[in-house]
């Protein structure tokens, strides 16, 4: 099962800072809630893990991240993450193309296009929630990314962003996540014409 997601995050920082941060693979991975890079294999290959906690159950994914390309002219990063949960019942992959562009008023935008594929139990049981769940994960990712970039600047705003970035949850908290999904679902239900 595959969903394609396109997201645009506005960051109150110059695009050069955002591009600089985008090339820090460990830093970017760290913006993904619950994710971390555990090993750098070579220039373009990393090993990583993601933990998801849903109530009392914890699911842990382990996988590989491959940098498919970094294009400085376009300020674009292309990476592929593939992994399987350690219980062997599900697998997932994400093909992500992200780039930075200038925005209005000295701000910039991070644009992400992701194709997320899940297989196994997660697809069978959670398939219908995939779009919403992926959406929520990316929302948290965007917020963390923005905080990290803003923290590279100076002043009170940067300090606040830095402390927010430091506080970000160390695992993907699916309770909060589910709440976001539920709220999103109802907004979608009643908000659209």
């Amino acid at each position, binding site marked *: *099962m*595959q969903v394609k997601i396109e997201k645009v995050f506005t960051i109150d920082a110059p695009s050069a800072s955002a591009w600089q941060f985008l090339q820090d693979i460990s830093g970017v991975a760290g913006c993904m809630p619950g994710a971390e890079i555990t090993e750098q294999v070579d220039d373009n290959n990393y090993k990583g893990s993601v933990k998801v906690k849903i109530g009392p159950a914890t699911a842990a994914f382990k996988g590989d991240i491959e940098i498919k390309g970094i294009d400085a002219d376009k300020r674009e990063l292309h990476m592929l993450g593939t992994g*399987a949960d350690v*219980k*062997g*019942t*599900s*697998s997932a992959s994400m093909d992500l193309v992200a780039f930075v562009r200038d925005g209005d008023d000295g701000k910039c935008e991070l644009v992400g296009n992701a194709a997320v*594929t*899940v*297989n*196994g*139990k997660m*697809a*069978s*049981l959670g*398939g*219908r929630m995939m779009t919403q769940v992926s959406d929520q994960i990316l929302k948290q990712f965007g917020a963390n990314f923005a905080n990290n970039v803003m923290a590279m600047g100076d002043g009170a705003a940067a300090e606040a962003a830095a402390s927010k970035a430091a506080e970000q949850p160390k695992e993907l908290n699916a309770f909060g996540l589910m709440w976001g999904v539920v709220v999103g679902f109802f907004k979608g239900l009643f908000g659209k014409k």
Partner: protein
Amino acid sequence: MATTAESLEREQKLEGVGCSKRRKEDPRFIQGKGNYVDDIKMPGMVFGDFVRSPHAHARIKGINKEKALALPGVVAVLTADDLKPLNLHWMPTLAGDKQAVLADEKVAFQYQEVAMVIAEDRYIAADATELVEVEYEPLPAIVDPHTSMDDDAPIIREDVADADEVGQGKRRHPNHIFSWDVGDKEATERAFNDAEVTVKQAMLNHRVHPSPLETCGCVASFDKVNNKLTVWLTSQAPHIVRTVVSLLSGVPESNVRIISPDIGGGFGNKVGVYPGYVVSIVASIVLGVPVKWIEDRIENLSTTAFARDYHMEGELAADKEGNIKAMRVNVLADHGAFNSHAQPTKWPAGLFSICTGSYDIPTAYANVDGVYTNKAPGGVAYRCSFRVTEAVYVIERMMDVLAQKLEMDPAELRIKNFIKPEQFPYQSALGWEYDSGDYHTAFKKVMDAVDYEGLRKEQAEKKARGEIMGIGISTFTEIVGAGPSKACDVLGVGMFDSAEIRVHPTGSIIARMGTITQGQGHATTYAQIIATELGIPSDEITIEEGDTDTAPYGLGTYGSRSTPVAGAATVNAARKIREKARKIAAHLLEVSENDLEWDVDQFRVVGSPDQTKTMKEIAWAAYNDVPDGMEMGLETVDYYDPPNFTYPFGAYVTVVDIDKYTGEASIRRFYALDDCGTRINPMIIEGQVHGGLNEGFAVAMGQELPFDEDGNLLGNTFMDYFWPTMVETPKWELDYTVTPSPHHPMGAKGVAESPHVGSIPCFSNAINDALMQFGITHVDMPHNAFRVWKTLHELNLDKD
């Protein structure tokens, strides 16, 4: 002298054929005293649980058992490599193919069995399955069977990629299983070329699952000292399982005992042999302790056989007046990753060729191609005879499609084309001999009961008011009671069935059959047959089935075959006993046996009505005073090979009201007339009809096994898979006619499956009938609210 009234009174006391006797098995079920496979507990018993594939198609790069084996309580972890030395990592299927017992180098469907963990405790086994590390290399999966035979399609079965055939004739692609056709292709083509009117419609009998309340499972217990293997198994066919187990394991058949205890519903799901059974048996033989394996609901829905998945294209040719000249059907059958189709050996598409239905169609041709896809194997007959639901669906839908084209009422078109009563026995264009039927009388009774004309008038008035109503008709003929051994066998064993009757000295009876009840009420029905034939009250007759050590060999219960086949054997066995009883009575009364006549429960001397011997008196004498040269005792066994199938039929009409804003269809009325020949227990028949209608409702209106494009199964829990409860179930109105089968010794035809087979097109015709008013010709099942709404939305009907 015995009066008619007095005879009648004695007859009523027997509670025999025709009596709505309460089911003898129910007191134990309603008190929770049933004994199912999962109730079996044995000393030292261990438990198996499967490690299953998350991928629909992948190569297995390695399996690491170490962590699982390290968990305290884990006894063993078995993989294909462990079964290889015994040559049991693959098993033969009923359809002549083979199926992986545990995935051998690759997996070909999601949830496929990869390894079995055996542990001292069910929970430890479940925990340990998550510790078995399997490394996969995912491969592209085939989900849509229409792409299976593409040039660049991935090869699903490398093990048979180059084989010319996989048990069912020549193939033309590595993912092709068989081509099977029947009828006169050229004559049909000519009829279509010459026809004034032709119609053609593609339709899908979607993939569903019988989902019995009890899932599949077994307890295998191998006694090393005596080389005796006992297996409690959820099986609809324990004897054929015994033969298969003996052939596979090398244990002599006399040392294999298969016991089907109480079975919580089968509906075709429990006919096959599944990997769980095989691995449990192997594990018990290897470990020397009893091994229990019970699958959970997700496993049952995901892997343990599916039903249908027939992608059909129906065609009819007719003249302008609506006289049908020819029928043609092309089918693409999705059989999943292994051809584990439930079928009599020579019938790769089952009895699909009954697709000319209740109509006198002079020329016909049907072609079925079976292909592999990356889905679970199966193709079981879900509450129907082999592929009869698919056949009935295509003809009953096509009748409505043709009626639309001719601008003729679908009821009128049916009446015009029904086989006439005087045409029976009727030879169908596709080779069947219909035994008996009176379709006109049955249909007229239903039309009158529902005021068909009034309904059509109401429908037109509602349309004018902006309301949507649909009327569904189904006038179906089934083919059940497989079957004559000249036509049908399973792995070479003819599809006969059997009954053994033993009359005790005090006149009570124990009888055993080769069938096995799963809720059909055999303990009651068979007893009623014997009661009528032998004059012993049915309450004093015990029926025992399902233990291969005691019951005579039979092919089991599916395809509505118990009454047509084992029921006939029961009648014949009883009649053999009655003939012996007549000789004993003649001896006791010192008259010639020709001077005796049978009267309900006794033999009476003709012309001397006070001289009688009751069956009970005769039973006592059978053990102490028999004629010279006669064996003592009163028992016999009969193996019945039916001369033909039976052809029960029915006429159903349903009325649905559709909420145009939500697509919700409410079943306002469902009128079902069934003709199953002689009726043994009308109350049990009604219960069976209720159950069949309910499952038909389920399939037509909601049940579905959907897959995403990668082969992930998206509906394998009861959260998604539709199971109608009393909330959703419509009210059923039942009726009947009686047209006995001329070749069955009692005239009975079988009934449990007709309502499933007949109601699915009835519901579907109703929804389509509603939409046909707005120019639609056909929409596929399941007709859940969302799908109906989508059509209404496309038609712009969901707004005021």
